[in-house]
């Protein structure tokens, strides 16, 4: 109903659709960029494109799916224009100096189960290199498959898989680091 009215240029229908979908679109933009100002601009651009193209929406897919895909494309175009720092396949998941001492990848003397809180995971996702973050958000958070990601990003399916693996490893590394820092801080406060 609101979609039909928006196709006719009804401002209230536009506003209704904006308020209905703004959180999902904005959250996607924020997770993919890790920057609130960019997320604001990109969410705005996504809605503008939505309303410019709404007459072409034929209803073959769900409206929210269509809008979501459109928003992803807006963010990807932006990252491409910005010169998305590609993360090469050779890049290792070795911690940087600021990450602290190196740990063996894959070694798990403590699992993360139960110890990952919202703040830590938000922070860890933000700290991912942009290429890794994009693929992690699209695959593990938004449910896109590797072939869809490869098509959207103009990369091979193998590249998408490889970067997802490295993103997960890097996230795990960051979260383990946060966990050990948290435990150390707790120990110091008790001493």
């Amino acid at each position, binding site marked *: 109903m609101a979609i039909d009215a928006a*196709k006719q240029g009804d401002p209230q229908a536009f506003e209704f659709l904006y308020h209905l979908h703004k959180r999902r679109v904005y959250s996607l933009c*924020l997770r993919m960029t890790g920057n609130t100002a960019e997320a604001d601009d990109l969410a705005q651009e996504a809605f503008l494109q939505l309303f410019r193209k709404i007459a072409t929406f034929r209803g073959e897919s769900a409206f929210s799916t269509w809008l979501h895909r459109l928003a992803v494309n807006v963010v990807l175009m932006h990252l491409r224009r910005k010169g998305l720092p590609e993360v090469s396949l050779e890049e290792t998941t070795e911690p940087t100096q600021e990450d602290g001492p190196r740990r063996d990848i894959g*070694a798990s003397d403590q699992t993360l189960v139960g110890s990952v809180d919202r703040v830590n995971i938000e922070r860890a996702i933000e700290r991912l290199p942009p290429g890794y973050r994009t693929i992690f958000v699209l695959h593990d958070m938004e449910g896109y498959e590797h072939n869809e990601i490869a098509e959207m990003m103009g990369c091979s399916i193998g590249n998408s*898989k490889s970067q997802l693996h490295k993103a997960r490893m890097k996230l795990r590394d960051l979260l383990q680091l946060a966990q050990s820092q948290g435990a150390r801080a707790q120990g110091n406060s008790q001493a």
Partner: protein
Amino acid sequence: MECNVFEIAVSESADLSQLRPELLQHAQQCFRCSGLLEDFQTIARKARKLASVEPARDLWGDIRAQLEREGLIQTELRPAAQAARGVRDRSADAVPAPRLVHSAPRSR
């Protein structure tokens, strides 16, 4: 199965909760890989549960202003839009007033 083969296969799995039997079998026998799998599942599950966020500022005002500049928003509805919103068309009941359709030139 080698652990590095397991790691790659896990990343190729669209759904970490539905791994192929040979991967699950390896995870059951390998402490290192079972920890890795458990962590990946935890991270993905918790990341999906992150709450959606409200835009930092109200974007609607700017969006509306831009749509008006582009002539995509009308200040008076066409009958089809009224019908879509369930507004009764009163044009048959009264003398129609002149339509005030906002159509600013499209900005370039």
